[in-house]
């Protein structure tokens, strides 16, 4: 039944989890071993994920029936083109973890490291599971693994304020998870099944109606909270800014994306069932996306704290993705799907570079960090590359996605949103220009900055690798695009009816 790399599918999820469980035992004597252990586990998991992507590329989407139970009676794992996100996700983790080895020196005592790396591994495993599961309740369980580890990761570095930010995140996140559970229960009551494909089939028999619509809306609101779109973004900036930088990179780059992936999953089901008129909903997404772009950029401009600025910039970029999804034209959705990854890459670059600077100087505001570029040229250059990418100047990774989303706006006959996107990028550039200006063209005001040194290699190398990738993925931007294209085209016949 299952052939080749498909066998590795459940193990790819389980491996980081078991790795996390074993971390305290492995690092019982030497807590610093935990970092290396986590890295090793992630490397092996990435190797498995590469196998899965290889299988996907050769034979197309495939399923795995956990426990050998035929569908819809057991839990189905399904690896399609949207699930392929697990590979870049793991690779980003592989780059981010070495960064945290030295970064944690200033953040936490050694004895807490095993727990920290366990949380990172759990987070990674949870996201992998989230991306590949084909079962609604299983989706909820993985959401909780990801969310719970994220709440904790926000608070590990700081004391009171961090705990407060994490708690705020926890309350809002828990309510959104409850909405998700509610929606799952609603669908179960309507169809008597939890398997996504099966639910889609049974929903088509049930037909539309208010209950179906409420279930869909509960999912949508839940995922929008998770992805921090504008009206429900309040939890994000503090949480992402106060977390240790490697964690910020994980949260801002990847964890918020589970909202997007979840939205795509729910779309797949509801489009296949074809029971709801989703045009109006898409239009709502478009508007909220556009507002997110502008408001995120607007708030970012007034921030002095670089990490807070980057956190607001995430809201803007999520806006791009949501706008692309809502536009519901092939180009826009392809662009949005790829931006899910490209934004993760760019944001990881920026947060890690910012983290390296904070680690070396202990300062985190633009006004304090003036002139840092002359003392930390490589990190600053990486930051500049990241800034240019996230604004979307050609030929960087950010450009390709925005090109496709804007083209999609024209394609779907909503040209004003195309222009809004282009000028939103401009708005975003304003605050990155502020940052680069401070780093490169202003005289240092702080002695710490004048005497700062480049970060150690274990931190510099990840930053440089990521910055290089930002450029490479602009130049080779066609590869991810052509990869998601079949999935999007499969989704689109039902799109925006």
């Amino acid at each position, binding site marked *: 039944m299952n052939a080749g790399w498909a066998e590795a599918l459940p193990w790819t999820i389980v491996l980081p989890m078991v790795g996390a469980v074993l971390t305290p035992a492995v690092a019982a004597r030497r807590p610093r071993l935990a970092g290396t252990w986590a890295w090793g586990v992630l490397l092996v998991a990435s190797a498995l994920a590469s196998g899965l992507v290889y299988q996907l590329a050769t034979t197309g989407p495939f399923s795995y029936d956990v426990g050998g139970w035929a569908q819809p009676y057991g839990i189905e794992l399904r690896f399609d083109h949207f699930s392929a996100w697990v590979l870049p996700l793991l690779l980003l983790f592989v780059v981010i973890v070495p960064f945290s080895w030295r970064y944690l020196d200033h953040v936490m005592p050694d004895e807490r490291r095993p727990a920290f790396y366990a949380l990172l591994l759990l987070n990674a495993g949870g996201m992998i599971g989230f991306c590949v599961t084909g079962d609604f309740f299983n989706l909820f369980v993985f959401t909780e693994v990801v969310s719970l580890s994220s709440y904790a990761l926000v608070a590990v570095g700081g004391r009171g304020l961090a705990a407060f930010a994490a708690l705020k995140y926890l309350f809002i996140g828990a309510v959104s998870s409850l909405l998700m559970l509610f929606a799952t229960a609603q669908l179960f009551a309507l169809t008597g099944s939890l398997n996504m494909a099966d639910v889609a089939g049974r929903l088509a028999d049930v037909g539309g109606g208010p209950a179906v619509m409420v279930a869909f809306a509960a999912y949508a609101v839940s995922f929008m909270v998770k992805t921090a779109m504008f009206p429900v973004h309040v939890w994000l900036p503090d949480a992402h800014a106060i977390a240790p930088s490697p964690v910020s990179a994980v949260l801002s780059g990847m964890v918020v994306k589970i909202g997007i992936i979840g939205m795509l999953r729910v779309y797949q089901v509801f489009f296949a069932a074809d029971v709801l008129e989703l045009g109006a909903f898409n239009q709502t997404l478009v508007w909220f996306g556009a507002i997110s772009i502008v408001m995120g950029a607007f708030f970012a401009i007034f921030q002095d704290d670089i990490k807070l600025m980057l956190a607001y910039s995430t809201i803007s970029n999520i806006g791009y993705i949501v706008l692309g999804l809502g536009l519901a034209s092939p180009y826009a959705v392809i662009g949005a799907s790829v931006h899910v990854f490209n934004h993760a890459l760019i944001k990881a670059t920026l947060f890690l570079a910012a983290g390296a600077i904070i680690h070396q100087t202990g300062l985190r505001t633009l006004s304090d960090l003036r002139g840092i570029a002359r003392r930390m040229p490589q990190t600053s250059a990486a930051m500049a590359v990241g800034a240019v990418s996230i604004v979307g100047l050609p030929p960087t990774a950010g450009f390709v996605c925005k090109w496709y989303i804007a083209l999609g706006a024209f394609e779907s006959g909503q040209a004003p949103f195309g222009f809004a996107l282009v*000028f939103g990028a401009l708005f975003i550039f304003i605050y990155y220009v502020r940052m680069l*200006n401070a780093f*490169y*063209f202003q005289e240092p005001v702080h002695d710490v900055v004048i005497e700062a040194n480049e970060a150690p290699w274990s931190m510099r190398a990840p930053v440089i690798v990521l910055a290089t990738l930002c450029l490479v993925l602009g130049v080779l931007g066609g590869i991810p695009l052509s990869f998601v294209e079949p999935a999007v085209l499969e989704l689109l016949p039902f799109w925006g009816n």
Partner: protein
Amino acid sequence: MSPSVGVVVSWWPGIAVALPLVGVAVSAATGWSERRRASVLAGLTFGSLLVALGLIREVLAGRMPEVHLLHMTAQLWMVLRVDAAGALYGATVAALGLLALTYAFGYVQPGPRRARFFAFFMACLACTLGVAYAGNLLTFLVFYEAFSVLTYALVVHEQTPAAIAAGTKYIAYILVGGSLVLAGVLLTFFLAGDLAFVGGGFLPVDAPRGQLLTAFWCFVVGFGVKAALVPLHGWVPDAHPAAPAPFSAVLSGVMVAAGAFGIMRVVFDVVGVGLFTSLGVAPWLTAIAAVTILVGALLALGQEDLKRRLAYSTISQMGYLTLAVSLAGSGVMAGGLVHLVHHAFMKGTLFFCAGLWIHVTGARRLGELRGVGARMPLTTAAFTLAALGMIGVPPLSGFVSKWWLGVGMLEIGAGAALAVLLAGALLAAAYLLPVVYAAYFAPTRPGAATGAGAASRAGGATPTGDPASRGAREAPWTMLGPTLAAAALTLAFGLGSHLRGFPLQLAERAVLAWFGGG
């Protein structure tokens, strides 16, 4: 496109762009002596110039060298393809770049920022060459945005509050412009499904008029910011005085011109003459160009700061290019394209001279230039030559281009445009001749040219001259040489305008491709 032109695969355009990029790495290399670094940079740029000249030869031989740089996606790919207009502009960029680079070796003071200056300078040069040789809109956009953003570092080079303010203004204008261009490119792709330049245009004639107009105005306004069309020119007079003189020369000579070059590309290679005329936008563009010429010149009259005055002059002169494009006549366009080249060297000379004056005497303002002609005769002579050229005195290059512009206008019966052209020339005389007068004939006030205030205003370029010295004292040859060379080119392009391989011949070729053999 005339049938005699054949596309050939050739790496040379890529090499022309890559050589200065190597220079970026060289500038950043530590542990090299200044002399060694300078000679390598100059060698690279010279190599680039040789390649650019070689490409002119290729184009004249009826070939169109082309190299594909990269395919990002099925839609987005970058290609360099050299046609007559591109070859002409590219050679101009390389030549003026080499002169400015040599000049900069003497002008830019040693210090931590020197390496940064050369790195960004070389990068800008590479990207501007890329703009010249771009074979499709995306390539054009990539290089155009890249050098626009990189220029910021050179504008704020001095890091004085004024420079930072000018830089902020610059980047704000340029980014808005760049975004409009991007929107235009997007819309073009949406309408045409392709981006490659084709002589005669490739936008579908039957596309909705509203969308065509939107695309067109996105391009014109977007490039117009760079080309300093009048309501959009705000950054020009601030950025030029703030930038170091060699970069001001390049900025005015070829980078502002890149905006005008972009408008040419859009009108002739994207929209096409036929569609351009039928859209009915030509009269509007003519009006904007005319306003630019006159307002730019009038504002130049009021400027005390010499570099500001020259910056306004650039605004006015760029108006001629837009005017030529808007009239869409083959003769006028040939004149416009030639003027792009001629203006580059004339304005280059003027900025070089202004820089020399600042460097030697600290004089930035008109009043401080009294008597400088006697102390720096060669510099002042070069300035005079270029100023006369700018006004259009025969047999200098400025005369040639204006003659062709004027004759072309008469051909198509654009009398009003001719009047604007002549008025612009008169105004040019009015704003440039007083400088010459001040330098040669105005009575010298003791200490005026070497006042302490003037010296401090010079910022990064500290006067090397002894304030007490009253005798002749020219700048070092690294700076004087390029100045004189640029001035000599002004003369040579005027005298030899009809020679093979000179700008006029290439311009006629380019026009042939755009107007379809007419």
